């Protein structure tokens, strides 16, 4: 593990050259897997994340079935080689919690009542991690759900905000996440402004919190545009074949 850089922000410029409210380069591709009903691959800064959706399909075990709506399963999984120190394979407490809050972040847009007794299974694999993996995962899963043809009211977009060297910043990198003062993942339905995921680790003032939330809103708007474009591009590619 490397040591903390002396400064995370120099005269308003971050370690990777960004300003406080700039996002990293993001590349989103919809429909990248063959077997899955829907899928999405994202490269977001140093993150490489793959999301797959299976379903609606019969919910197993049967006692999990809900006669009024589909249930959602969400599995956030970090590949053992995705981080510097090998991660032990399998679910740990962190991934159990992330899976839960991510599932709840997508639930508000899914029209589950169309598929009673069934299950919509979302699998998110973090292949390479560089801070903001849960928000990258939610962003990818949202595209994969649309790609699978699941009825939805909208897409969900997600990004993390936080604080480092006393400044509120958008879209943290690993160093800022590790050595900064706070990390706050946010997911939103961009068009309505509704918040579907909100967590905060660390410590910030009330004023900083409001500023961070507005940064997140701006960030989600950019993410949404890229999500939409990835789906439109997938269709256009199928036309020009």
């Amino acid at each position: 593990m490397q040591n903390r850089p002396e400064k995370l922000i120099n005269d308003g410029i971050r370690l990777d050259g960004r300003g406080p409210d700039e996002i990293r380069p993001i590349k989103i591709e919809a429909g990248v897997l063959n077997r899955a009903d829907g899928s999405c691959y994202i490269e977001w800064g140093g993150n490489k994340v793959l999301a797959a959706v299976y379903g609606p399909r019969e919910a197993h075990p049967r006692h999990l079935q809900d006669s009024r709506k589909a249930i959602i399963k969400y599995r956030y999984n970090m590949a053992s080689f995705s981080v510097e120190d090998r991660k032990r394979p399998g679910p740990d407490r962190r991934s159990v919690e992330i899976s839960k809050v991510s599932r709840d972040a997508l639930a508000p847009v899914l029209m589950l009542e169309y598929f009673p007794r069934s299950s919509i299974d979302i699998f998110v694999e973090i292949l390479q991690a560089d801070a903001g993996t849960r928000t990258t995962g939610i962003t990818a899963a949202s595209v994969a759900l649309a790609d699978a043809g699941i009825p939805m009211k909208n897409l969900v977009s997600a990004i993390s905000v936080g604080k480092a060297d006393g400044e509120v910043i958008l879209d943290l990198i690993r160093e800022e996440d590790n050595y900064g003062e706070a990390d706050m993942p946010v997911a939103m339905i961009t068009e309505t402004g509704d918040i579907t995921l909100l967590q905060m680790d660390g410590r910030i003032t009330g004023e900083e919190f409001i500023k961070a939330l507005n940064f997140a809103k701006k960030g989600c708007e950019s993410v949404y545009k890229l999500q939409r474009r990835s789906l439109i591009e997938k269709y256009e590619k199928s036309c020009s074949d």
Partner: protein
Amino acid sequence: MREEVVIPGCFLGESVTAGEGTFVEENRVYSMVYGLVKRDKKEVEVIPLSGKYLPKAGDLVIGKVIESTFSMWIMDINSPYEGLLRLSNYPKRIEKEDMQKEMRVGEMVITRIKEVEFPMRINLAMDDRKCAVIREGVVIEITHTKIPRVIGKGGSMINLIKKKIGCNIFIGQNGRIWLSGSDEKIELAAETILKIEREAHANRLADRIDRFIRERKKGKGKNAK
């Protein structure tokens, strides 16, 4: 003609009738799925580009028998939900002991969705003249959302394939397609249909398919476009 492609949550209009694939919020109509917009004089709908087959009463589908119980056959109908064909909905009277003789586990059956009961309990019937157990040919599977492309406007595409290849084709609404004829014809028909699925949104699809069949019949390389 460029088609209008939308993602879920796109605003489609006010004071229009909300058709399939859309939902209404405060009198405004939005898309509910990733798909292509189809506008009528009054109605707007979105044809999904992907998704699972959701059984509708009246649909003719191809089911696969997966279980035979004391009073019904359970069929996989390429959907999140299984179809149930009860003995009482079977066209002829048979003894329970003979159920296995009529339809064996693993067999494919053309059947009709009789009714969809809450919560998605699917009852099947054999009351259409096309309903039958499939005992020859091959059944292939494609995404059910591409079925309209295989059929084509007014049946133009499917008629083209039938005429040019000379193979019998039955299309189930659930994305399963039954092909019968000589092995050679079945193989060409299957390849053609899978090509339509793959290139469903390409320009001038009918021309492409026509050319494809002609070239394949001439015996050009297997992977000819």
